[in-house]
């Protein structure tokens, strides 16, 4: 890759390596790989299995097209010697003469998301990796546990294939370890993945014993601590805080002996039959090369350098980054940053929106209502996936005898591009007005066929799929007769259902291209600024009389950027922005509407009310600090919270200035029965403060009493620096909390020392409490107004923890910052940008199209009993009154089609046939059931 030009107008040269398989021709039948004689270690399976030199990366790969691994292909190494694949390929797709291509691309901006690699323990042979077969990496275990992996999900010992009885996870291999690999940082994700793998391994085999050897359990994300506790208490995973000294073979069968010093200081030897190395994340050589070619700066840890206030912007203008390339991070945060980078790129390119994007066009729809039934059935072979286990010819012949069917076709792959063209031709030539595809699952392929029949001039809903693969050929591999019968049955049912299918109209919803952002802290300001910079008007609501939120009270970010200064700059930009209207001292008092069409009522402190129409809502209401009632807080003057300490430090208060001994107590109110979660930022915050105190006066005695030190990611360098400066870290457990008492003017802190195994008494001039972060008052009311859920801890609950981290399940509503969970500035800003990007996908258009599968009311049958109102998970149904022909008022329900997702709960609940989902009418379902029973 080569990149020239500048922001807004880059020119990029990209080299495309040849696949040696023609993507247009390949039908992914797999014949080539069956015949290919060359076996290669499979990197997708992390080296646990073999693949062929011609392969698809994994069975669900997109695109599902084969490729030849040039380094291992016999023909490509020595033309003429093999060529087995070319001989068997039914599609003539093999092209040994393919050459690399250079593409020249014009792009307004560039996003680098090369991801991360994992530390390779084979170079160092750490813990016997590479020497003892039963020492594997976590990624290898992941593949062993996977149904698509080398053992189909059975956890066996690589040495002899025997079931694993005892597994040990060793944490921090290739992380937090300068000596081994130079990686001083924490990889952030390994504690969680080790717990997950241990739990899943035990799910597979409840008799399995799993132990995790760790230094600090870093489960700092949303719901992570609860998962950790469940693993410990319900799944019986054993957690041992220690670094294992060594792994040695025990006997000749592959058993492994581990020796370590336990928390009581005893030397222990234990035996395991599988040792899993929780390998850390590190930037790949290729990604470093990419950084070099793109001209962006890397940190000393080889991650892309970014600012905490612009977490997806690289050192080069117009070049953005996201995911683990800019520091180790988990899936949710990576997805957040993916959206955030889109927002950052869109900010630059907003004037050119819709300049190059193309819209598909379709011919006008044929009116089929007056036509006789003309059904076409397409039976798919799916290569040998279906045809190998089902007599597809018999199914096709049978289909031709079904009522209404006028045309039947068999296809090797019904989903291939050439078949789509063929289908269009057949539909038009035979004037088909309903189409059935007997193939795989509608979940992956219905959309494709909808587009195909639209292109043939049919309403897209005149379509039905019969799943004769996932629900048939894949599960009845041993009985071809029965599988063929079942395929015929499924096809008959689909034909019966589509017979009663009429054209449906998609629902078009207009969009008010305006955003409401609730909460004017750092997240709210970041979201508002990005949306406004993309050209969308924003109303920014703030409860208090000033913008800035917690940003006004904080000190520095972990990397040392001054927060109040940057927050003030954001406030300035907001106040001067033409497209942002700020409403301070204001609350939302009422809200109604749905995606694209919200109407909120806001009320300011002076009592004036105002209605705002907006298309999207972004909730950034932040969080508060807990006021503790332990450790003598508010009783003893020199017991202060972390934020109070920051202020005292800033104004050079004499107690701080003259103080010689400081004790920081972590997890005050966090990770206990009241607030069962980690507040995420406090470890780093205390470490930063400790470093400053120590740098100011190295003779000061500073103690940090902690439960697990959670300086995740590159923050680990701060932890290391603090230790090097002589800050003393003492671990305590929840059942042995420190005790603070005041004797004369001195605070006495008593804590159990786990290294010395005896209580320790510290005389402290000041005790600083790292207090928990809690949801602010009033979020419950706000959640009710917009009908969005809160989680068990009172933070807003996103639609999906991994894949939709800033969306709510209800369309058009988004969440960012500490309203979602405690988090540091850069993660809040990334979420705010992500929420903005997600909102912009709606605001960038005048209207949005929703599918036509919606509930419909039959006013003749509905008597307004309202049973359906309660079961509807989308709040789409309301009870109305209308005047009937008899002049009387009747109750009946009304469906908001923008809210309705067509789930059918209403239809299942209704005792009177008063509501049904289009495309799943009772007539259709009855016909389908009758067809099922018709033999």
């Amino acid at each position, binding site marked *: 890759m080569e990149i020239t030009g500048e922001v807004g107008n*880059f020119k990029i040269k990209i080299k495309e390596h040849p696949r040696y398989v023609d993507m247009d021709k390949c039908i992914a039948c797999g014949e080539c790989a069956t015949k290919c004689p060359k076996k290669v270690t499979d990197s997708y399976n992390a080296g646990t299995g073999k693949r062929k030199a011609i392969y698809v*990366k994994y069975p669900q790969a997109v695109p599902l097209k084969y490729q030849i691994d040039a380094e291992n292909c016999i023909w490509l190494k020595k033309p003429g010697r093999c060529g087995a694949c070319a001989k068997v390929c039914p599609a003539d797709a093999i092209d040994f003469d393919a050459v690399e291509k250079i593409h020249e691309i014009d792009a307004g901006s560039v*996003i680098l998301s090369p*991801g991360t690699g994992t530390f390779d323990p084979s170079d160092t042979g750490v813990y016997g990796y590479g020497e003892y077969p039963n020492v594997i990496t976590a990624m290898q275990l992941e593949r062993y546990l996977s149904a698509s992996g080398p053992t189909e999900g059975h956890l066996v010992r690589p040495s002899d294939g025997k079931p694993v009885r005892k597994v040990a996870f060793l944490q921090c291999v290739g992380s937090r370890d300068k000596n081994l690999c130079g990686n001083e940082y924490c990889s952030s994700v390994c504690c969680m*993945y080790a717990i997950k793998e241990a739990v899943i391994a035990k799910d597979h085999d409840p008799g399995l014993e799993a132990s995790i050897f760790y230094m600090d359990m870093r489960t700092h994300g949303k719901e992570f601590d609860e998962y950790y506790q469940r693993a410990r208490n319900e799944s019986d995973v054993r957690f041992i805080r220690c670094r294992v000294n060594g792994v040695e073979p025990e006997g000749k069968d592959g058993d492994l002996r581990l020796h370590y010093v336990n928390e009581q200081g005893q030397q222990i030897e234990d035996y395991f039959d599988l040792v899993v190395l929780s390998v850390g994340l590190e930037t790949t050589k290729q990604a470093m090369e990419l950084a070099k070619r793109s001209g962006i700066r890397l940190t000393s840890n080889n991650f892309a350098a970014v600012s905490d206030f612009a977490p997806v912007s690289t050192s080069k203008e117009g070049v953005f980054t996201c995911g683990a390339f800019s520091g180790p991070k988990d*899936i949710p945060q*990576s997805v957040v940053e993916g959206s955030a980078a889109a927002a950052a790129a869109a900010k630059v390119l907003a004037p050119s929106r819709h300049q190059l994007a193309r819209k598909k066009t379709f011919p006008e729809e044929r009116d089929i209502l007056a036509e006789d039934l003309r059904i076409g059935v397409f039976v798919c072979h799916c290569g040998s996936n279906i045809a190998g286990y089902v007599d597809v010819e018999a199914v096709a012949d049978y289909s031709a005898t079904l009522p209404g069917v006028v045309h039947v076709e068999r296809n090797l792959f019904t989903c291939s591009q050439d078949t789509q063209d063929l289908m269009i031709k057949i539909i038009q030539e035979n004037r088909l007005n309903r189409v059935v595809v007997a193939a795989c699952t509608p979940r992956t392929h219905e959309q494709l066929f909808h587009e195909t029949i639209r292109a043939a001039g049919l309403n897209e809903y005149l379509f039905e799929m019969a799943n004769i693969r996932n629900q048939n050929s894949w599960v009845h591999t041993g009985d071809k007769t029965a599988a063929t019968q079942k395929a015929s049955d499924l096809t008959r049912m689909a034909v019966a259902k589509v017979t009663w299918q009429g054209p449906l109209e998609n629902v078009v919803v207009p969009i008010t291209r305006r955003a409401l952002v609730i909460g004017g802290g750092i997240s709210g300001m970041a979201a508002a600024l990005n949306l406004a910079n993309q050209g969308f008007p924003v109303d920014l609501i703030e409860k208090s009389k000033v913008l800035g939120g917690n940003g006004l009270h904080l000190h520095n970010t972990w990397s040392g950027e001054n927060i109040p200064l940057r927050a003030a700059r954001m406030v300035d930009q907001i106040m001067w922005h033409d497209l942002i209207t700020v409403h301070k001292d204001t609350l939302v008092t009422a809200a109604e509407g749905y995606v694209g069409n919200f109407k909120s009522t806001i009320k300011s402190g002076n009592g004036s009310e105002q209605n705002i129409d907006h298309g999207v809502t972004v909730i950034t209401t932040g969080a508060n600090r807990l006021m503790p009632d332990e450790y003598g807080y508010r009783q003893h003057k020199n017991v202060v919270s972390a934020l109070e300490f920051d202020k005292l430090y800033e104004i050079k208060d004499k107690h701080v200035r003259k103080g010689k001994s400081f004790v920081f107590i972590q997890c005050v109110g966090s990770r206990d029965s009241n607030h069962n979660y980690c507040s995420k930022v406090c470890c780093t915050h205390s470490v930063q403060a400790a470093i400053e105190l120590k740098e100011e006066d190295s003779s000061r005695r500073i103690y940090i009493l902690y439960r697990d030190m959670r300086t995740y990611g590159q923050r680990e360098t701060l932890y290391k620096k603090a230790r090097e400066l002589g800050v003393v870290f003492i671990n305590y457990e929840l059942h042995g909390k420190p005790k603070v008492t005041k004797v004369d003017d001195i605070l006495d802190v008593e804590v159990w020392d786990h290294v010395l195994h005896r209580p320790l008494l510290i005389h402290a001039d000041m005790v600083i409490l790292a207090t928990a972060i809690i949801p602010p008052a009033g979020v419950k009311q706000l959640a009710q107004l917009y009908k969005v859920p809160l989680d068990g801890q009172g933070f807003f609950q996103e639609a999906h*923890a991994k894949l939709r981290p800033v969306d709510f399940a209800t369309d058009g509503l988004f969440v960012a910052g500490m309203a979602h969970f405690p988090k540091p500035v850069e993660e809040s800003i990334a979420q705010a940008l992500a929420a903005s990007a997600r909102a912009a996908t709606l605001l960038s*258009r005048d209207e949005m199209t929703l599918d036509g599968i919606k509930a419909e009311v039959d006013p003749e049958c509905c008597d307004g009993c309202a049973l359906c109102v309660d079961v509807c998970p989308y709040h789409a149904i309301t009870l109305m009154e209308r005047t009937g022909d008899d002049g009387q008022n009747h109750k009946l329900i009304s469906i908001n089609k923008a809210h309705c997702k067509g789930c059918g709960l209403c239809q299942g609940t209704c005792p009177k046939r008063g509501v049904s989902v289009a495309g799943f009418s009772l007539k259709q379902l009855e016909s389908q059931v009758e067809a099922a029973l018709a033999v």
Partner: protein
Amino acid sequence: MQKNKLVGSVLVVGGGITGMQSALDLANAGYYVYLVERSGAIGGAMAQLDKTFPTNDCSM
């Protein structure tokens, strides 16, 4: 910067979970996206995982 100089397209390098999310959000907001992936298929590291926390959903 001149408006007519701006090119309404974005190059996304890397087709893992992050790059795919960027590409989708940009395309849905009206920008043309080039998604470039080193290997033969998109999906990245997440496609290698068996299940994910907290629901133990299949990663695929």
